[in-house]
């Protein structure tokens, strides 16, 4: 059993309230930072910790903080990205819903480090009840003197507000989030300039994920060096994984970086193995935008090493034989899953969520969805698989923001690892048309059937 840094007090009755949170050591990091540390010293601790952005990109948080423009004389802002919308990912919601003061404490300490006087938590609009929980907790923090004017008599002021979005996945991209926070459509901006130089209202801005900011209080209280002792190599600390799909125990788990995928998947403490003990067919370790791995590449890398729950190990082999840690959205698929149908489902999502600003994304996501739909419904053409491959390649890397890549990668990975299933759909349309996708029976042994058809 690993350390609990983020979820240590998640099950304490009443921990949502300021009073109980404070009794369990809450807001100590604010006291420590403001009384005994300079802002730069807080930044250094975060750098030493090796904490990497937990929203998906994995960029070192301390380094990101050090980029903020301190010379312009403009106000600086910290914006928490709580627009959690990636299919498979629901960890930030857990933190905010059950331990709202942890995020608020992290926002105060981090705002102090960055020299901010006005910060925001941007939360997806669908999490409206969580929005209200956070609003309530922020009011409590103001009443207790942790927010507002002259905090702890230091002369430092901070206002913190929670801001709700309105149902757009694209607003999880940091510049789209900033546009949205300015009251506009969530269209991503071209970078550079980066938000650290010109972000919210053209002021220097840092955008960090909920989980990243929630780790800051522990780092400040216990030192970055202690945090860096947890985990392996450049994957330091603990990480939240949200598990879903065909596993026995879906939910949110905090683990030390470096556990084996096998232990996470199969031990009773975590996912408990496969639901109904059906065979594992594939797995997405980091949310819908990262490549799916087939069963034979899940527990071992292509080189035969144990696959670990780290940034490096999950990505081992690149996209050819690896995937990515992403946001930690761990989606498990058993043998009843139709990969073509699931890939079409993802394409529908990305088409729906494209902001429409870039042609390759706006047109390409819709085109992929259409082609996948016709294959899935038994109307596919022989050339469709190559066509899909061609479309996804033309989207990847050719858009303002990474949504294009996120839409392309699941399609590429599905074709790369499950091409036979696409071929089966095209060659045996009657079997596809007659298949009931919603019964608990295994998808047919396509390799055998495709091979047989090729002989005939």
């Amino acid at each position, binding site marked *: 059993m690993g350390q609990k840094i983020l979820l240590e007090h998640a099950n304490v009755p009443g921990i949502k309230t300021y009073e109980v949170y404070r009794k369990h050591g809450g807001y100590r990091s604010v006291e420590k930072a403001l009384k005994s540390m300079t802002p730069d010293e807080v930044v250094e601790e975060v750098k030493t910790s090796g904490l990497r952005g937990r929203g998906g990109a994995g960029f070192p948080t301390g380094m990101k903080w050090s980029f903020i423009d301190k010379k312009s004389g403009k106000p600086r802002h910290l914006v928490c990205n709580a627009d959690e919308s990636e299919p498979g990912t*629901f960890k930030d919601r857990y933190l905010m819903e059950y331990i709202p003061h942890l995020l608020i404490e992290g926002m105060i300490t981090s705002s102090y480090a960055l020299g901010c006087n006005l910060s925001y938590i941007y939360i997806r609009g*669908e999490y*409206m009840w969580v929005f209200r929980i956070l609003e309530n907790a922020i009011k409590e923090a103001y009443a207790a003197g942790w927010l507002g004017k002259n905090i702890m008599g230091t002369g430092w002021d901070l206002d913190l507000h929670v801001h709700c979005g309105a149902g757009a996945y694209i607003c999880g991209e940091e510049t789209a989030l900033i546009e949205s926070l300015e009251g506009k459509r969530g269209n991503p901006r071209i970078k550079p300039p980066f938000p650290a130089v010109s972000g919210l*209202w053209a002021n220097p801005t840092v955008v960090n994920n909920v989980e990243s900011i929630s780790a800051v209080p522990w780092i400040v209280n216990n030192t970055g060096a202690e945090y860096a002792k947890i985990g392996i190599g450049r994957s330091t600390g603990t990480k939240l994984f949200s598990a879903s799909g065909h596993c026995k125990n879906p939910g949110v788990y905090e683990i030390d970086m470096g556990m084996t995928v096998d232990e996470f998947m199969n031990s009773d403490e975590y996912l408990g193995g496969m639901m109904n003990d059906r065979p594992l067919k594939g797995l997405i370790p980091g949310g819908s935008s990262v490549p799916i791995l087939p069963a034979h590449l899940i527990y071992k890398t292509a080189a035969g090493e144990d696959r670990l729950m780290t940034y490096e190990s999950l990505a081992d082999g690149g996209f050819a034989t690896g995937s990515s840690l992403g946001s930690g959205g761990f989606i498990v698929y058993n043998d009843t899953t139709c990969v073509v149908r699931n890939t079409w489902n993802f394409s529908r999502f990305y088409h729906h969520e494209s902001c429409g600003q870039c042609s390759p994304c706006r047109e390409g996501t819709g085109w992929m969805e259409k082609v996948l739909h016709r294959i899935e419904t038994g109307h596919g053409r022989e050339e469709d698989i190559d066509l899909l491959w061609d479309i996804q390649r033309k989207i990847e890397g050719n858009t303002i923001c990474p949504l294009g890549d996120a839409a392309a990668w699941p399609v590429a990975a599905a074709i790369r690892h499950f091409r036979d299933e696409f071929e089966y759909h095209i060659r045996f349309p009657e079997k596809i048309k007659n298949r009931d996708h919603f019964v608990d029976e295994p998808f047919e042994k396509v390799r055998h059937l495709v091979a047989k058809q090729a002989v005939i």
Partner: protein
Amino acid sequence: MEISHAHQEINITPALQARIDELLSHYPADKRKSALLPVLHEVQDAHDNWLSIPLQDKVAEIIGIKPIEVYEVVTFYTMYNSKPIGKYMLEFCRTSCCSIRGAENLMDYTCNKLGVKEGEVTPDGLFQVVGVECLGACGYAPMLQLGDFYKEKLDPEKVDALIEDCRAGKIDLHKLTITQ
């Protein structure tokens, strides 16, 4: 933009105006437009969950921006409704994790029970069933959103009970009690 010709009574009550003023206070005085999304949520909640063109114009007037700036936002974000909807909109997540755990079957069940197709409003105006993209409840699938809240790990019996609670007026779409 699809324009609804349904009439909507505009009623900016003192309580609603106070809430709008509170939200506006969260942003610098010269950045009032930033409050647009939260203000639209509050105004929509107070007006049967939809925003007519005159109501959108009213929001523009309150914030001090051009009407087109409100239209742009309302048409971009999926949570704003520019035409009347059912009082109880059952928004089923149908993205991968929910789909493989039976979301479509449950949607079909709900539509059949209510005698509507996806997107339609029941003749009494009470219910509407829609499919939406990922709601971030993947580990608790299948699920739906109703007002400000999620209903998770659903099965037909739970859907039946939910519909009965709606009919009995037991469901408050926006009220949250923070009990712990």
